[in-house]
């Protein structure tokens, strides 16, 4: 499988603020890739850098085999972008904007356009200033989804959508993937990433801290275990991959890494385990662990 996006060591500073601090990101062809991270982590900045709207100070970038800063227009012919904060021209109707953006991208397929307008339940005759936030976002989404390109770059595409529209959106993204197209979307919504994405990358303070499939990421996190045992087990705390072990009146609680689980359970068994409860990591834990760690 080829890589559609490869960023290596990308640095972007805004005066004294370092927004991207040696960022590496790989998105493979045909996958739906979620880009997650807390507010201000650098998601929007990354997307704008890889579109050539911002000029990175260091690092190498390859998007669809091109350099986004030098071959911007050629690159844009092959991708579609939805900004996080969609602002429309106040006096142009939604339909006009959709058609304009389509034409500027190299042509609109009226059938596809009408189909998406229908599916997203948009009134294309309203003027930009009279759309609600969600409807503004729909205008940009329809313009992007209706275009025939290889790569879709979506910045928090569902942040203004209601649940029904969100499921329409997911459906559309699945269709794109079935078609072999690549989608990179930033999000704060865990369930969206879980339901939609093949791989995720988590960004914090301008660096990627985790990247992989959800199963791989889960694997990296710890299971919390509670057990009651008959006799004290001295070696438990020294086992590799066991954290925060507390032993009190025969009750043991600990956080155990996935790899350390067999050894830990065996040790418990040797101590005469009476009850055993284990909670596998939820996606929530996974994110909280990355979002909150300072």
């Amino acid at each position, binding site marked *: 499988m080829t890589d559609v996006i490869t960023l290596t060591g990308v640095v972007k500073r805004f005066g004294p603020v370092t927004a991207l601090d040696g960022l590496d990101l790989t998105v493979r062809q045909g996958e739906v890739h979620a880009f997650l991270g807390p507010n201000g982590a650098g998601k929007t900045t990354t997307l704008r850098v890889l579109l050539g709207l911002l000029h990175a100070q260091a690092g190498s970038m390859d998007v669809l085999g091109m350099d986004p800063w030098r071959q911007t227009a050629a690159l844009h012919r092959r991708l579609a972008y939805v900004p996080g904060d969609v602002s429309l021209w106040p006096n142009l109707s939604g339909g006009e*904007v959709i058609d304009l953006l389509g034409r500027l991208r190299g042509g609109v397929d009226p059938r596809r356009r009408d189909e998406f307008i229908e599916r997203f339940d948009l009134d294309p005759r309203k*003027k930009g200033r009279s759309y609600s936030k969600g409807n503004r976002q729909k205008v940009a989404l329809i313009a992007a989804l209706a275009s025939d390109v290889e790569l879709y770059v979506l910045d928090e595409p569902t942040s203004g959508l209601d649940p029904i529209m969100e499921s329409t959106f997911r459906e559309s993204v699945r269709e794109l993937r079935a078609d072999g197209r690549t989608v990179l979307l930033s999000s704060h919504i865990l369930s969206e990433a879980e339901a939609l994405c093949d791989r995720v990358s988590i960004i914090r303070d301008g660096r990627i801290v985790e990247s992989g499939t959800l199963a791989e990421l889960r694997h990296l996190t710890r299971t919390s275990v509670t057990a009651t045992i008959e006799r004290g087990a001295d070696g438990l705390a020294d086992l590799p991959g066991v954290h925060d072990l507390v032993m009190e009146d025969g009750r043991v609680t600990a956080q155990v890494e996935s790899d350390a689980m067999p050894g830990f359970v065996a040790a418990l068994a040797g101590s005469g385990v009476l009850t055993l409860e284990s909670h596998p990591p939820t996606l929530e834990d996974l994110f909280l662990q990355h979002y909150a760690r300072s």
Partner: protein
Amino acid sequence: MSRTRSGPFVGTWTMLRFALRRDRIILPAWVIGLVAMVSFSVAATKDLYPDAQSRIEASDAINATAALVALYGKVYDPTSLGALSLIKMTAFGAALISVVFVFLIVRHTRTEEESGRLELLVSGVVGRSAPLAAALLYALLGSAALGLLTAAGLLAVGLPAAGSAAFGLAWALSALVFGVAAGVAAQLTVSHRGAIGLGLAAIALAYTLRAVGDLADGDPGWLSWLSPIGWSQQIRPFAGDRWWVSALPLIATAILVPVAFALRSRRDLGSGLIPDRLGPATGRIDGLVGLTVRLQRAMLVAWLAAAVVMGFVLGSVAENVSGLLDSPQMRQYLELLGGKQMIVDAFLAAEVSIFGIIVGGYAIASVARLRAEESSGHADLVLSTATTRMRWALSDFGFALLATGLVLIAGGAAIGLGHGVSVGDPVGQVARMTSAAVAHIPAAWVMAALVLALFGWLPRAVPGAWGLLAVFVVLGEFGSLWKLADWVLGLSPFAHSPTLPGEQVAAGSLIGLLVVGAAIAALGLVGWRRRDLAG
């Protein structure tokens, strides 16, 4: 304002403090700049007229020259040093400060509302009418400060106290009326650009009314009394100090303020008075140029209409100029200068020159659209398509150049038509005045190029182009009076436009303007290519 914790005016003081804080640099900068301008110009003219006789001669010459009367008004007391040395500052200065106040007030009303920032505040503890009330109080405080400092400045350079106070009052009232009028305009339009356009149109109309009214023999005609700028003149600082005239702008303010609040309470936040109609479901905008035309055409049509109407009116009064030259000595003097035709031509040339500067303002507004498109995020949408940055910038810039030329040609033709109809030679005069206006195109294009350069290198400083325009105007009006070096005067592109009709066209300086403009524009494009897209 209301002291209860609810009601439409709650939070007015907070909003006012916030507005003053936001403008803590720009407001003092304008006020001090304007006060310095008026004080320096008095200081510079004072010694030119040592005795009453010299003042009377200078005043008579001004009052007898219709071009100057239309431009600046009359000197109502030929012996008065204050009235004579401030002749250029009375009407003209009042218009200038009124423009500043229109910008300031729209900035705190419609611009805030359009950007959605106001919503954040109004959803809090701020009442519905509080932002407008704060903006109007801002206009009051700002104009009062301007008036007081102006009076103090004039006093400091040695003019009589009463006249200084009257002059400060005249300026303050003009700023106040147009500031409040801008508050009304901000209720009518949805875009801040529309509100500024309405405000500026009102100022232009007021200026034209008094120009025509002042041309009447003796006392000004009734048209001058319809104009707030005319009122400022008719207070006649240093020439009788007619305080009672200040009742007129106060009455106008007292009428406009409730109108603004009534309009405000009749509409929703973010909307204008006219609800939006539905637009087309499919678009016919066929690309970048189509988008530019679509976004800029309303402003172009408004400018064309204004240019044609005002051009025609001003052109048709040119011939009346000779009616003012009744005294036999004056006529003799004028024959020496080249006769009546000369005087009429000088008047027409002055009109075209001013028009050229105003259209320079249009060029600024038109190119500044690039920055507005960028900061609003629209550029993100367009530039993430196959559109290159160069094509995007050149589309708006090219449109601005063409539109600037078109407005100048239309205005020149209208001046020619107005004048031609009154002298019975429409075709000849249209041709003559159109070519006079064409000669002013290069200078306006240089202004457009300057905005592009700012956009390329210092996008946040794009509004500074208006300050540059103000500096060029002041250089042109007062530079030689202040005995500034030639190279300083030459910094203004308008200094290189020929005075037409009446002068030989120096092709060299026009070509020079075009070359300099092209270089500045190219520089701007280089900057734009290399920089980040900024919010």
